[in-house]
């Protein structure tokens, strides 16, 4: 059993992992109880497990825990204190979610791009095209992204 230390949502956390190759996804979900990060495919093909790793969007099913050690991880639970991050508000405004399972990953993807640089709607849509929504909420997500990028352009 190996022990890894990383910063999760602003707090130092220690993870005991049976295997240093255990993906960050399972460390978050099964070891730290942060179930907002979702398992969809385990192969980096759906985006449901997207978190921020040192501020960049990363698919947590593709990051071994040993590679996350010492780094800063933000999950959907830590995106805001009150669930009122601009992305979360834009998603709510458009009533974007259906079953909602893919939405934390989509929100984390969009939030990283908006924070990093003033990404355009086209850039964000391109990144979100790496995500799967089986309910097909893409139209409303597109509208939420347009609202966010228009608001950013004005500020």
């Amino acid at each position, binding site marked *: 059993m190996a022990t890894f230390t990383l910063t999760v949502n602003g707090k130092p956390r220690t993870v005991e992992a049976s295997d240093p190759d255990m993906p960050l996804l399972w460390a978050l979900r099964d070891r730290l109880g942060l*179930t907002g990060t979702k398992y969809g495919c385990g192969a980096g093909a759906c985006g449901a497990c997207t978190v921020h790793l040192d501020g960049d969007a990363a698919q947590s099913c593709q990051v071994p825990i040993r590679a996350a050690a010492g780094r800063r991880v933000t999950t959907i639970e830590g995106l805001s204190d009150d669930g009122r991050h601009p992305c979360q508000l834009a998603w709510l405004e458009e*009533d974007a979610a*259906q079953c909602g399972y893919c939405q934390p990953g989509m929100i984390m993807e969009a939030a990283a791009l908006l924070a990093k640089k003033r990404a355009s709607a086209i850039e964000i*849509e391109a990144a979100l095209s790496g995500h799967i929504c*089986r309910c097909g909420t893409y139209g409303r997500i597109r509208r939420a992204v347009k609202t966010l990028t228009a608001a950013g352009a004005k500020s």
Partner: protein
Amino acid sequence: MTATRRLFLKTGAIGGAALVLRIPVLGQSGRPAGAVRFAPNQWLRVGPDGRVTAVIARSEMGQGVRTSLAMIVAEELDADWKTIAIEQASPSPDYARMSTGGSGSVEGGWKALRAAGAAAREMLVEAAARQWGVAASACRTDSGWVSHPPSGRTLGYGELAGAASALPVPKEPRLKDPKDFRLVGTRVRRVDGPAIVAGRAVYGLDTRLPGMLYAAVARCPVKGGKVVRFDAAGAKSVAGVRDVVEIEGAVAVLADDTFAAFAGRDALAAVFDDGGNGVVDTAELWRRIDAAAGKPGRATRTAGDAGTALAAAPTRLSATYRAPFQAHATLEPGNCTARVEAGACEIWAPTQSPQRVQREAAQRLGVEPDKVTVHVTLLGGGFGRRLDADYAVEAVAVARAAKRPVQVVWSRRDDFLQDRVHPAARVDVAGGLDASGRLVAWSHHATTYHLSMFGDFNPTEDPEGNPWGGYDFPYDTANLAVSWSEIESPVPTGAWRAVYYPANVFARECLLDELAARSGQDPLAMRLALLSGPSPFVLGHLRIDRAGLARVLRTAAEKAGWGAPTPGRPGRRSGRGLACNVYDGSTVIAQVADVSVGGKGDVAVHRVVTAVDCGRAVNPLGVEGQVESGVIWALSYALKGELTYEKGRVAETSFGAYPLLRLDEMPDLETVIVAGSGTPTGMGEMPVPCVAPAVANALFAATGRRVRRLPVRPSDLV
């Protein structure tokens, strides 16, 4: 699927009790008013603080049912929507129908939930009127308050909870005149939205119990097969693995986390006995369909003499349409959490069918159903897959063997391999026109696999009502022959969003388009002429609203610019097509697609316009969402989806091999809800069936090539 089974899918119960209002058990205690909650029936509660809780007995899988059903209760109760709380029901004798399928939740709940809210409201008003010594008829209600306008007095629902609890429950409460609705018919955002965007929404896979282990199960990927050998020691040598347990035909590895469980399962190196179905591949599956299609099916609807009329028709066409096997691919993979202790069992499941889970788990454990408690979590997609109880029964078996709480997690690969797939279908259709271009004969023969999810194949089962989309042929014609061939499936099959409609509507609406083109008619005008007959016409228990169908056709066509040229795109050929359908004698829908095709046969769908009449839109924002969802679902199906088989196993076990539509491929979607003022009808499945034929007809307009098999292949267009 028989009419009875179709009813089962829709309501989840055969027969089924009507709403039973119970004598209140609270409020008789002598406690002061304000300390008592008011629970006049199983659908709602009013707390002493006035907060209303709506109890939802259908599963939330994205269709918005926790919002729309709560809106119906809140409307009649005049509750304060801003503070409403939602509670998910568990199976109990209070709930006759909990199965969520067949797009029946809102239609099925409409009367009972209105009555439940209205009864509670009437009791609260009566309690206030007695306290004030005024006539109940002089009181009003609004947003959780009763008022008496002549005297200006008001009381909150919470303050009245105790007194209301002591009153008899009215048997026939007075319902609102729909023109007085304040909430139903407005655009309401889903109640689970804030929890979803904050990552707090709890799906099945998010269940966490003290002492729980994670489990991965090695199961044979062939129907009827089983595990015969495995390396338990190998699995136990994987760090984090706690135990290996055998259940009927399969083996579970229990571990401290999901990753270790998956690694331990790999280390089992399980060897399977495939049984007799291990020889089946895609070609064989189609051969069986073709063999059955070559023989006469069982006639389910007959008018006149279609054979003779077809032979005599001056214009006639026949064609064979094919739709392949499809996966559900819910984004939340299969999973279930269970605890079995001292002859009792608790289950946390993302299920569309909690009563079935309860019943089958009890059977497996050999206990009475009331010893099994089922907690229904949110579902990360359902689409029919979660009407089965296989994954829950398996988890119960693992938890019993493990003697501790267990969460069985399916990998994405497991989820593909163990899906209850949408079976391939072949539909043979023929139509004949008279000299004036009028449809005088139609024959429709569908051949597909039995849905094993609903029980063993029974060749003598009554085929009434089948095939959906063929049996309920909505157009007026003098000679009609509809028949159905169902064969036993060597692969596990099940309900899939819209079930039999997609393949049959594809064939029907495409052949009509072919006949229109052959006879030089406009496809819209031709359909409208065929819908001018008696409306509605009654077919068994179905009412086919031809006039309503014609109305949504005209609406969609007008919105889409039918008759005007499609926008030109350099280097691409453009086209527009339409299709329409009546779903199960209820919701009527028409869709128009704009497409373009590149030089290599690459297809782009640019725009889909939908017009729909669902009786009454309880939540128009939700109705539009279901249209958007259904169109994207159907485009994945029409353009991409296809499962194949090798050695009895699904060959596509990843999102790479079974691609789904992505955000950058989605067309512009426009939806018109044609205002209805009756009983609301379903919306979950209804937007799916017309998309593929509308796209195929648009592809013909663009290229002159007919698409008669799905998914659309570029090679079919060049």
